[in-house]
Every structure is written in C-alpha cells, then in structure tokens.
C-alpha cells in the first residue's frame, strides 16, 4: 500500500530524513517511533504530499507523491502534529468543510459526520466553537477530520497527544478497529502505545531508520533472552554485594549481572542470560551460599530498553547514571 525508497529530506543545514526505505502492506498498523527531532513528522509530511522529498521516492496505493499528488491526497487521511482547526468554526461546520474538501456531499457527508462524531466521542461538542475546545477535544476533532472520507491510508502524527487516559484507550481501540480496511501509520513517543496498537514498529533516529520489525521480533531480538530480578539478603549481619555478584556471575549461562541497589542488607541484582530457564540454578546458588532469596522475578525486556539500545546515546547516559549510583 505504501512503498518508500531511499526517501531523503534535506533542510538548509541539516538532513532531517536520511535515505529511508520501507513498505507497508494493506491493513497493517505501523508505529513510527523515535526521539524528538528524529524526522517522524518530516517523513509523514512527505507521504502526505505536504513536503516534496529532496531525493528518493514514495508511492501510496501505487501513486507517486510527486507525480500524482492529487490521487495520493484522495486516499490519505492525515492528522498533523497540531490539529488543523479553524477557531471560528464549530465542530459540525468544520467537519462539513473538510468533508467537502475531500469530495463528499449531501446525505453521504451528513452520515459520515454523524459516524465520525460518534467514533471520536465528540458528539457533545458538535455545536461548540473549535477555538473554545480543550486540547484533548481538539485532538479528537482532528482525528475525526482525518477519517471523515474513509480513506485507505491513515497517517496520524501523535494521535494520542494531550488525551486523558480513558480517551487514550478509546483512541487506541478506534485505531485498532480501523485497521483491516485501512492502512495506518502513526507516530508516537509512547512505547506502550506501540506495543498495544501496532503490529510493526519502525524506529527512527536522527533521520535514519534503525529498525523495522514486528513488536514480538524486536523484543526477542533484544540482547538478553531472559532478564531476571534477584533480591538477596544475608542471614545475619551485612552482606557484601560484590561477593554476591561474583557468585552469581559464576553460574553457567549467565551473561551479565548488574547490581541495582542495596537496602539495609538486601541486595538487588538484574541477571541477564542467553539461555532461558536458569532460575532454578540461580535459586540453588543463592541458598547454597547460605543467603536468603527474597525475590526472584523474570522481567521481559521492554520495548523501552530496546528502543534505548537501538537509538544509541541514551543507553550510555543511562549506564553512566547507573555507575554513579
């Protein structure tokens, strides 16, 4: 449905998007993830024909964004970073205007307006001026505007920014519900959002695509196959955390032991292993050494950690912060 090859955008001084290539199949939901200034908005703007690429090409539903922009625009629903609202219009009026711009009219248009108002939960502000809406409601009207003409492709730039938790869930459900018939690209900083809504993730950093994969694959691709949190306490008196760390490192299969913190005489460690199932070995080692095993809890490598790992510099920051503790 969407095919991007070597897409590049240069601004006067910097390269905002640097030779990005990816493909999105019909019906997929793709999460576009990256820190601030990574180039998410710029990429989306090129896909929606708002910005022309400096190099490379992008096609939407088989139409090139430079050659046949009108055909591309007909098939795209776009929610920009700031919802494009006219403050002097009320909600219904605005949706009518946008619907007409997208080529709808008559009873079809009225039907769509009723539908999107209900889907985006804005029925109660239908006759309110857009300039008087709260941030969350503006975002919802922006979303309603993007889906008004039932487009094949939806491009949503941070769709849940500024929404309350309940509405975030509803919006995620709405987006999930739209998948299937629609192909969706959404950008976000919020990692759980990607885990919950998207099938595929693209991680972008400084204009470069650092990873494209399904959420599960990314998680298992992360360095450790298993991460276990261990809390060890001494029977009597103090326990030297370095001793415990050395003992844990000796266990076969353990690739890394990270000392987290110590509380009175309880010591917390994060143990990373290449093979799974060494919890038994861990427990035995601790008990045999005469210590108490207070806690043993597997933690999945979160997308957040993968993200930090892939986007580089933050990892070192985090490590430095840890070292300082």
């Amino acid at each position, binding site marked *: 449905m969407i095919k991007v090859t070597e897409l590049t955008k240069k601004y006067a001084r910097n390269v905002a998007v640097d030779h990005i290539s990816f493909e999105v199949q019909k019906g997929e939901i793709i999460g576009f993830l990256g820190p601030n200034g990574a180039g998410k908005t710029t990429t989306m*703007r090129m896909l*929606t*024909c*708002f*910005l*022309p690429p400096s190099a490379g090409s992008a096609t939407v539903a088989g139409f090139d964004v430079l050659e046949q922009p*009108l055909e591309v*625009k*007909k098939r*795209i629903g*776009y929610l*920009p*970073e*700031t919802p*494009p*609202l*006219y*403050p*002097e*219009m009320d909600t219904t009026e605005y949706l009518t*205007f*946008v619907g*007409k*711009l*997208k*080529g709808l009219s008559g009873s079809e248009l009225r039907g769509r307006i009723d539908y999107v108002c209900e889907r985006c939960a804005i029925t109660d502000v239908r006759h309110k001026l857009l300039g008087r809406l709260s941030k969350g409601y503006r975002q919802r009207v922006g979303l309603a*505007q993007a889906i008004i003409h039932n487009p094949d492709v939806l491009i949503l730039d941070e769709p849940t920014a500024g929404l309350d938790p309940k509405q975030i869930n509803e919006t995620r459900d709405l987006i999930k519900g739209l998948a299937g018939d629609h192909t969706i690209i959404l950008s976000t900083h919020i990692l759980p959002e990607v885990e919950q809504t998207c099938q595929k993730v693209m991680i972008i950093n400084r204009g470069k695509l650092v990873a494209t994969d399904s959420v599960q694959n990314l998680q298992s691709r992360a360095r450790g196959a298993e991460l276990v949190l261990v809390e060890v306490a001494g029977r009597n008196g103090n326990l030297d955390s370095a001793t415990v760390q050395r003992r844990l490192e000796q266990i076969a299969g353990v690739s890394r032991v990270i000392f987290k913190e110590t509380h009175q005489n309880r010591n917390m460690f994060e143990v990373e292993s290449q093979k799974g199932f060494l919890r038994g070995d861990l427990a035995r080692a601790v008990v045999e050494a005469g210590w108490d095993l207070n806690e043993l809890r597997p933690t999945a490598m979160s997308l957040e950690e993968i993200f930090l790992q892939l986007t580089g510099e933050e990892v070192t920051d985090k490590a430095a912060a840890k070292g300082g503790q």
Partner: protein
Amino acid sequence: MRNVWIIFRKELRSYFVSPIAYLLLTMFAVIFGFFFWNSLGYFVFMGMESQMRGQAFPMNLNEQLIRPLLSNASVIGLFFIPMITMRLFAEEKRTGTIELLTTSPIRDVEVIIGKWLAAVSLYAGMLLFTALNFAFLFKYGNPDWKPLAIGYLGLLLQAGGLLAIGTFISTLTRNQIIAGAATFGVCLLLWVLEWVSGYETATWARVLSYLSVINHFESFAKGVIDSKDAIFYVTVIFLGLFFTSRSMESLRWRS
C-alpha cells in the same frame, strides 16, 4: 470549480464571523459618505454662486461630482486593501491549517482563486454601500448612469489587482501584521509613483508612472473603457495570482 466555491464560501464566512467585515464596511461607508456629502455641498454651493453672479456656469453632475468622487474612492480603497488580504494565507500558516488545505485533494490554484474571489467580493460589498450615496443623486438629479457603471468597473478591476498583490504578500509570512504593513507599503508606493511624472519626462519616469495603479483609473473615472488600462489591471491580477501560486509551491520547499 466546486473546490473554488468551497474555499470561497469558507473565506467569506470567516470575514463575517470575525467582526472585520463589518468594521471595514462601516469605515468605508463612513469615510466615503463624508467625501460624498462634502463634495455635494461644495457642488451645490458652486451652483448657487454661479446663479447669483448671473453667469451660466456649466453644471454637470457627472463631470464635476461623480468623477472626482470615483477617484477619491479609488484612493480610499488603497487603505482598505491590506486589511482585507493580510490574513488570507498568513493566518493559515500560523495556525497550521495550511497543512489541511495542501494535503486535501484540491489544487493550489483553486485555493488561491477561492480566497481572492472572497476578498474581491468583500470589496465589492464595500463599493455597494457607496453606491447608495449615488442612488440619492439619481433621485434628485439626472446624472448619466453609464460613466458611473464604468467607474465602478474600474474600481473593481483596480482593487482586483491590488488584492492579488496583497494575497501574494500574505503567503510570504505567518504574521498578519507584517503582511498587512507590507501590502499597505506596496499599495501606497503604487499610488505615489505617478507623482514623478509631474516634473520628469524621461523614460524611467514614464515607466514608473505607468506602473502607478491610480494612473490607469483616470479613463474609467471619465467613463471610458480604455483597453490599455483594462489590460493593465487584468495583467496585475494575473501576475499577482501567478506569484501567489509560485510562492505557495516554494512555501513547501522551504518549510
């Protein structure tokens, strides 16, 4: 065509939702009304004067009242044009709604023409108010309506050109005030350019005075359609809108 209409309606509506349209209509009506009654008073005074002296002073409504009034209207218009066009694109750029327009299946020209037509319509509305004053003349006098109609056509053409320039300037910035001030400067310059012809007859002076929009209005005020002047205004309109579309395109390349 349908898209032009959609943009036109939206634009005209936003003029009337914000009080700007009413403000402009009222101010224009008041200022022009002042000129009108002032000139009429003077005209009547001159008429009585000539009667008292017993000379047959040739009194002609069209020549002595309507023609100078139309010229006045064209100058007053210069001051109002920036206020009509300044928000057209600058505001869309500031609030980001330009992103909606440029990602909708609608051509740039359709957006531009829709907006420009809305601006012209508002100006036409302002002229309509001034026409009420002239209606008074028809009730009590016997002026020739044809030169008056041609004069109005000239006013509309002239404003069309300046509004196109204003529309263009509005695409250059996201700040309405800057757009308005720049448009006002350009309008003023296009008016005073004509003054060089007062003391200089070299080619450069003639070129400058040719560029003065006011110059080309004279024939219309007299009630004649001079094709040279009509072509001048149409060219200004065309160039203004053409540059607007170029600017809208390059706006994407830049931002």
